[in-house]
């Protein structure tokens, strides 16, 4: 099989700039990989070979005419299948939406198209970004190549798997309680949840309006910053979008961490809850790597993990139930069992409880930012456990809520999950780095310094050539 599958976005882009790689060649190589690999890993709900080849040909023509639009021009990308692409079904991985064809592009789709990206297809997700992994849906769940048949995290499961298997160099996910960072952690790739309001959600099927984010997923940090650069920008028609300047997200990459102050939030994973010992050791090792690079890493305390988790889950359950209540009442059998169970709970949350959760959210934002004053970022866990076998229903249910991602959906801060080594059994471990609002460039700087010092993002799953 061609090793073009493991080309990074940045490498492919450089080769296209130098006219040493044709977008058509790259798309054809990836389509061949997908045809060979996807029957086992199920990253795709819909593959679009004809459309992708036509778009790649158009990109090649423009590039050869000296009109390369930017780093994404000619680069294959995938969309989590709750993101609209005009003329193509947005299924939300659900029987309910099996025939639902998008009439317009989502704003992020529009931005990618304008940048010249090539859409390869729509990617698996947990049903409506909440119910998974599930085996009672029209499409099978995506499977993690790490471990040969494990839970890939979710809900942006197909995006994580497509990257981890070399089917795509870049994909979009969404994150309401951790759904970009969970598959990033489980699949040993890089996923960023940007600041709330940084990237438009218009045209993305919502799960919880006030917590939803769209985020870039890639195999390394440099690629992630390049992808966010295209996605970011104010959208006056997205009520959550904020009109702030879009900086150069790559500007600080390569400057190292010497002199930066990083707070280590240990109590989330070794106190409030207890992570897997190898995961704790990986975070300790990451803190030491950053210290050796010149960062001042010291322990700090935020609010207890459970405070953020309760707040996140009540807001999410309330807003998601409001969105789904009619279908839950009228077509309950069209939902998979997991989505149905996770969605109906919101039915009994009273208006005052929802308002109290919103009030608590504001308090947690202030408390968190106060605790982070004087620090450039915090380091903590993303997932608390390595990925379990996907067919072990009890293990998946146990691992799913054991995480420290929800706090930063509550606070809206930018947060990245990146690989941090492997267990003795060869399963992915990860860390999470969290910045101040709008400071994605600083998060990328720290993540890149760690990545460069450790090389964890260069590892590939055994058996996937």
């Amino acid at each position, binding site marked *: 099989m061609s090793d073009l599958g493991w080309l990074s976005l940045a490498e492919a882009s450089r080769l296209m700039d130098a006219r040493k790689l044709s977008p058509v060649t790259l798309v054809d190589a990836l389509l061949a990989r997908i045809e060979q690999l996807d029957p086992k890993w199920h990253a795709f709900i819909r593959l679009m070979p004809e459309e992708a080849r036509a778009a790649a040909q158009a990109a090649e023509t423009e590039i050869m005419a000296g009109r390369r639009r930017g780093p994404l021009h000619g680069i294959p990308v995938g969309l989590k299948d709750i993101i609209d692409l005009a003329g193509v079904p947005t299924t939300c991985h659900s029987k309910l939406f099996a025939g639902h064809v998008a009439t317009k592009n989502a704003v992020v789709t529009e931005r990618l198209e304008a940048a010249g990206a090539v859409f390869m297809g729509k990617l698996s997700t947990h049903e409506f970004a909440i119910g998974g992994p599930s085996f009672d849906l029209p499409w099978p769940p995506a499977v993690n190549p790490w471990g040969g048949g494990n839970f890939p995290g979710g809900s942006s499961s197909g995006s994580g798997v497509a990257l981890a298997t070399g089917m795509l160099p870049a994909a979009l996910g969404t994150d309401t309680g951790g759904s970009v960072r969970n598959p990033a952690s489980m699949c040993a790739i890089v996923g960023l949840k940007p600041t709330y309001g940084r990237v438009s959600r218009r045209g993305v099927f919502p799960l919880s309006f006030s917590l939803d984010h769209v985020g870039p997923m890639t195999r390394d940090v440099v690629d992630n910053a390049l992808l966010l650069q295209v996605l970011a920008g104010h959208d006056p028609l997205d009520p959550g979008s904020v009109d702030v300047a879009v900086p150069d997200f790559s500007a600080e990459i390569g400057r190292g961490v010497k002199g930066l102050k990083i707070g280590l939030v240990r109590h989330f994973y070794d106190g409030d809850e207890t992570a897997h010992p190898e995961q704790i050791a990986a975070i300790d090792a990451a803190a030491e790597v950053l210290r050796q690079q010149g960062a001042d890493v010291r322990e700090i305390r935020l609010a207890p993990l459970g405070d953020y988790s309760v707040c996140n889950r009540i807001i999410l359950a309330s807003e998601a139930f409001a969105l789904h*209540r009619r279908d839950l009442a009228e077509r309950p*059998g069209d939902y998979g069992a997991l989505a149905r*169970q996770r969605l109906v*709970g919101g039915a009994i949350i009273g208006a005052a409880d929802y308002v*109290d959760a919103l009030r*608590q*959210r504001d*308090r947690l934002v202030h408390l968190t930012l106060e605790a982070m004053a004087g620090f450039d970022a915090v380091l903590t866990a993303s997932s608390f456990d390595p990925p379990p076998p996907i067919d072990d229903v009890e293990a998946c249910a146990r691992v799913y809520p054991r995480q420290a991602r929800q706090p930063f959906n509550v606070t809206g801060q930018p947060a990245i999950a990146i690989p941090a080594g492997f267990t003795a059994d060869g399963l992915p471990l990860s860390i999470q780095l969290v910045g101040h609002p709008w400071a994605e460039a600083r998060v990328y700087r720290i993540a890149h310094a760690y990545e460069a010092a450790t090389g964890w993002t260069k590892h590939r799953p055994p058996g996937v050539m």
Partner: protein
Amino acid sequence: MDTNELARLAGAAGLTRYLELYPEQLRAAFSLTGDLVRRLPKDLGPTDEPGHVFRLPFSRETGQ
């Protein structure tokens, strides 16, 4: 949660079919959510205003 309470909550939410079709799912979901609600803070005061509030759309044309 007893059956009467489950029926009352399901009825109020328009989910009466669930009592017949998915009673255990409903019971588990309501029980979990009830536990979350009980864990909300009890010390929120009048000045703890939610951050996510109604706001009018900004108009680029008028600058208002």
